């Protein structure tokens, strides 16, 4: 036994001196120590006897960390109390403190036994662990522990007996067992609220057996065997264990679906104003939930050819019929719109249809003009029964004759009164013969007559005659055209020859005399006709002038230039002399003859009554009427192309027919198909290839706005939503099944004709 008194002669051994002294003694083989300490730290460890003997320390008044890192086979008995860190990192020693222990007693102990005969301070037992190679550490406290005890405890066994402190709010202080993950704390007495990751439960038999055994030794060690009975009331005990790793929440959020179903306003908080089943759609949806839906807008819009044709001839339909092999129907169709497909469409018409043809942007317009010629000799039967009504038509030009043709086909009796000796108007009188085959014209006039139209020629109409005709017919159509030349009052204007009179004379075969040099004022198509006429009558040089860029078609201009003619513009006329024309700049353009072709005005003086006019022209109402039962057609309304007169002739016929039947005439509204809807990429460009015959040009026709039945949509639809159905009454339709369609728009994207349109799905709100 080595007794060490740490204070001698008023001198205190330092911790270092004391520990070195103890170490040297242990090294010498000393095993028993009695240490009268004076606050020296770290007494009792880590020390070991070389021969494996047991070390015993009896200590009074130790400093902090008594028994720290204490080894197995070491026993430390503290008489009285010990400050902080009793048995810190205890590695196997038996440490007994008969009084109280300070804070963090048993801190990080991983083996051995620590007995405290009083209470222990804050954070006691924190971070205790259990090394599985050794017995679990034990930490016994007779009374209570301070706050934060057993914090982060990872193993071992702690026992807090709660002796004499059953009135305390908590024998474990505040916030015990925070972060505890292992081990067990047996406790007798009140415990403050525990964190949810530990469990407070009753003892089982095994716990009781262990506690009962251990209690005997503990009480014996701290000399309190007298408490044996009071502490062995096992019903007063509980144990605190940590939830197993698997039992912990690990940041798991509650299922919101369950929360909504169980603890939320039923049906949702907006269910009174907005119906919602809370189902979720993906980015793709069908039926009502598609963003957009396709619509098969077949023939809803006019093709550019139809739209730009003043007579609204739907050539795309003709080509579609040809594609289907229905050649007769294709040829007949045009006659619903004009009786002059051969003379006008196929010959003299500048064909605005072809100019606007979508195909023109690809390579060459579809051969619509030529298609007209195919219908020149087609015969059609009169389908309608006689109406018993008689319509008179004043003027046997294309406008009047178109009206006559339409009205006759509708079953009305029709008589056309023509001032000239032959029917045909400007086709007959003005259009140069080389531009129009007379046989074609005769044939088409004959077709009109064959439809039952009565032709009356040499019948000039004056006011009196007009009155007479009004009385004699149920309706009257005014189609006398424009024949009064417009001439400006330049000095010398009396020298000017009117182009229309000149061309009429040529066509009548009068062979008007023409000098060597001819000047034509006006470079429209009529000007080119006059120039051509002048050359035909023997002129050597023709100069055509205009104040603006020549309006004649390029091929007409090229024809005149080919004959040697010159076109000058902009040129303004100052005067006409016997030498020729003097321009505003004072330049003389030599010429012995000046022909003017700047337009003609109508002569409507025969209409005795007041009618609405703009300058020389009539202004009909929306129903084409200028008077009750009198309708106007063609150049009496506005100067235009032959096909304009044909268009207005048809409209006037429809208007007159409606009027005769007491119905209101509503002009057809044409909507052009939008160019961006058409997909011309599917058509190969015709690279220097030969164009087909007009009747074979259906493959090139885009069929703008009208389904060409190509099945591109049907075969491209990724959802197989499109179906083609034959209709009972003939024809077919394409349908998109909303239950399959996702609204992707591929049908509209691949449709060459622009028939499929994507529309916003119906407004669901």
């Amino acid at each position, binding site marked *: 036994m080595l007794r060490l008194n740490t204070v001698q002669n008023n001198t205190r051994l330092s911790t270092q001196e004391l520990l070195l002294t103890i170490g040297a003694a242990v090294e010498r083989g000393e095993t028993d120590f009695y240490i009268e300490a004076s606050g020296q730290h770290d007494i009792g460890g880590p020390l070991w006897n070389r021969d494996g003997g047991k070390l015993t320390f009896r200590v009074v008044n130790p400093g902090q960390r008594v028994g720290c890192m204490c080894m197995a086979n070491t026993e430390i008995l503290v008489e009285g109390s010990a400050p902080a860190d009793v048995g810190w990192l205890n590695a196997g020693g038996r440490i007994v403190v008969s009084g109280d222990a300070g804070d963090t007693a048993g801190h990080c102990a991983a083996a051995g036994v620590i007995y405290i005969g009083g209470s222990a301070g804050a954070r006691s037992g924190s971070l205790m662990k259990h090394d599985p190679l050794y017995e679990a550490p034990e930490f016994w406290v007779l009374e209570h522990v301070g706050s934060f005890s057993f*914090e*982060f405890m990872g193993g071992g066994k702690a026992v807090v007996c709660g002796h004499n402190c059953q009135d305390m709010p908590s024998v474990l202080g505040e*916030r015990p067992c*925070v*972060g505890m993950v292992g081990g067990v704390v047996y406790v007798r007495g009140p415990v403050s609220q525990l*964190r949810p990751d530990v469990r407070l439960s009753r003892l089982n038999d095994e716990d009781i057996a262990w506690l009962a055994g251990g209690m005997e030794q503990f009480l014996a060690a701290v000399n309190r065997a007298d408490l044996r009975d009071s502490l062995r009331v096992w019903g007063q005990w509980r144990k605190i264990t940590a939830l197993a790793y698997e039992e912990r929440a690990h*940041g798991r*959020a*509650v*299922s*919101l*679906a369950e*929360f*909504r179903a169980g*603890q*939320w*306003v039923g*049906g*949702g*908080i*907006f269910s*009174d*104003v*907005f119906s*919602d089943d809370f*189902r*979720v*759609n*993906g*980015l*793709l*949806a069908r039926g*009502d*939930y*598609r*963003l*957009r839906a396709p619509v098969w807008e077949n023939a809803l819009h006019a093709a550019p050819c139809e739209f730009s044709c003043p007579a609204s001839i739907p050539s795309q339909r003709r080509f579609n019929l040809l594609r289907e092999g229905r050649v007769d129907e294709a040829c007949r169709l045009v006659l619903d719109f004009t009786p002059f497909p051969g003379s006008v469409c196929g010959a003299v018409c500048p064909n605005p249809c072809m100019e606007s043809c979508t195909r023109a942007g690809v390579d060459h317009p579809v051969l619509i003009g030529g298609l007209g010629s195919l219908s020149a000799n087609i015969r059609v039967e009169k389908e309608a029964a006689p109406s018993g009504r008689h319509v008179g038509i004043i003027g046997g030009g294309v406008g009047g004759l178109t009206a006559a043709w339409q009205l006759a086909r509708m079953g009305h009796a029709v008589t056309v009164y023509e001032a000239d000796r032959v029917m045909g108007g400007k086709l007959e009188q003005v259009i140069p013969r080389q531009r129009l085959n007379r046989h074609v014209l005769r044939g088409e006039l004959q077709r009109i007559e064959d439809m039952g139209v009565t032709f009356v020629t040499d019948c000039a109409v004056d006011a009196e005659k007009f009155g007479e005709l009004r009385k004699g017919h149920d309706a009257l159509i005014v189609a006398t055209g424009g024949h009064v030349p417009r001439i400006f009052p330049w000095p010398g204007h009396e020298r000017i020859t009117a182009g229309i009179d000149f061309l009429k004379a040529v066509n009548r075969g009068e062979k008007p005399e023409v000098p060597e040099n001819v000047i034509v004022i006006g470079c429209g198509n009529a000007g080119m006709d006059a120039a051509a006429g002048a050359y035909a009558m023997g002129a050597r040089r023709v100069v055509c002038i205009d104040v603006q860029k020549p309006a004649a078609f390029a091929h007409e201009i090229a024809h005149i230039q080919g004959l040697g003619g010159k076109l000058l513009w902009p040129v303004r006329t100052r005067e006409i002399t016997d030498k020729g024309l003097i321009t505003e700049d004072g330049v003389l353009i030599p010429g012995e003859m000046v022909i003017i072709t700047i337009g003609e005005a109508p002569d409507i003086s025969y209409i005795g009554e007041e009618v609405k006019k703009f300058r020389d022209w009539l202004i009909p109402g929306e129903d084409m009427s200028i008077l009750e039962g009198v309708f106007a057609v063609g150049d009496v309304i506005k100067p235009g192309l032959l096909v304009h007169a044909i268009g207005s002739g048809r409209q006037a016929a429809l208007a007159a027919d409606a009027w005769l039947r007491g119905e209101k005439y509503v002009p057809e509204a044409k909507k052009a198909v939008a160019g961006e809807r058409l*997909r*011309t*990429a*599917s058509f*190969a*460009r015709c*690279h220097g290839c030969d164009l087909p015959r007009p009747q074979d040009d259906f493959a090139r026709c885009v069929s703008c706005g009208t389904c060409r039945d190509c099945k591109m949509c049907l075969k*491209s639809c*990724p*959802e197989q939503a499109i179906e083609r159905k034959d209709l009972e009454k003939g024809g077919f339709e394409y349908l998109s099944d909303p239950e399959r369609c*996702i*609204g*992707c*728009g*591929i049908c*509209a*994207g*691949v449709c*060459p004709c622009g028939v499929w349109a*994507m529309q916003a*799905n119906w407004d*669901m*709100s």
Partner: protein
Amino acid sequence: MESVTTQDVTRNDFPWKISYHPERCTMCGSCTAACTFNAIAPVMARRDLTVSRKSFPEPVREHMARPVIAQKNDVDNACVGCGMCEKVCPNQAIAPVRNPDSRFPLLARAQGPVKRGGRTNLNAQRTLDSIIVGRISQMTDPSLDSERHTFDIRSPLGRVLKADELPFRVEGDNLVLTGATPPVHWIYPAIFSDMSIGALSTRAWEALALATACLNEKHDMPVRMCSGEGGMPIKLLESPQLKYVILQIASGHFGWNRIIKALPKMKTDPAGVLIKIGQGAKPGDGGLLPAAKVAPHIQAIRGVPKADLLSPPNHQGLYSIEESVQKMHLSLNAAFGFRIPVAIKCAASATSVSVYNNLLRDPYKICGGFFIDGIQGGTGAANEVSLDHTGHPVVSKLRDCYLAAVMQGLQGQIPLWAGGGIGMTGNAAADVFKMLCLGANGVIMAKILIQLLGCVGNERGRCNACSTGKCPTGICTQDPRLVRRLDIDRGAENIVRYMLAFDSELRKLLAPVGNSSLPVGRSDALVSTDKAVADKLGIQYAC
């Protein structure tokens, strides 16, 4: 020959160009079907070529046309970059790509002023990002364990009285309350900030309310949500879960008829009332709900027909902050029996400190909080010029307000709540911690919530089409078709999970500074790597 002129608008002029790989595309139609902006469409593309396949030049013209997906060229259908096409494409054949050469700001304005949602695009640089939590307690004042220790993460909403102002009388050893004290609610330091019914879809708004309730009832996080100025659903007004909602009254006063009518049927008081004077994203401008979003149920809740709903820029009839305290605060306190806190929200501005000082002098003690919203705040539909060019950074303004109160010894009495861009970088907890240290009692956050619901918008011009009614995620639209795209449970769950992570990250910042309660005003915990920021905010400069 293509007919294109230099002035024609093409996809090259747009902020987003569609990158498309036809060789990967099978024309399944998914991308075009999913695009709410109708920005892409299938078309036929000509693939004609003259080729020569012999060993000598022998031209053969080959024709092929194939369908492709093409971006539309018109401004009205310009791609916004939301990327739904990319998301839905099974073959990675299509995606929007940001176009650095965009001329869109010019082109779009040629058709009128630009309106958009989202947050400011020009002022996205953030003061908070130059601030670091620089004081880490180690030895001197021990830090806490963020995961295992308990923290008191609560902030006041309501007027807090000074100790000597409390109406207490000493009776023996006890203090006895002798008069009424203003209501104060101790709530989580993040309020889900006012996004209106109307701005948000029914599902999006309900998801926020649902997440709020779940955080309260299942996760012990007393988060409050502010209704926004679009009124309240009657069913929620009559539900016990009303207690999590702060009602907003703004200059448009939308929906208050239904709120007032529901008073007798309320099972509980709401969490408070927030008087909105202005918002950071478009200060000086009132709320704006474009007609495209004024669906029948919005018309019903708000009591107005379909039209562009413009809240006046100011509360008509209020001409000063004193009058606001008198009229708005008093009336709204009175309406709920002086039982709930009534706070006020203003856009951060050069005058914020004056306003706060005025509120602090309120003799009636009925102002329960001062909310300031900075320029980085969000909006559903603002004029872009307001969004990008008006407003005030919130950080220094918050600091100024806090220090003004400190100078008078009045800090903490009218809680300061600040927001505008909180969580912009994804980490709201760090933002909140810094704001708390600078003097905020809590923060308000909004856009991050819809981003958690699935919003793909950002500060670099992606999507931000909240004003169009065509929100591809069903969040900022009233179109039932698009609303159906939003999974309310999944959205709400994302918010709940984020808030749980937020909570643990906030602890991770609280623990090192050794605070187990909120470190309001603990600016010693912060350092800035920007000298100017450090000087302005009165925090340490470090580099």
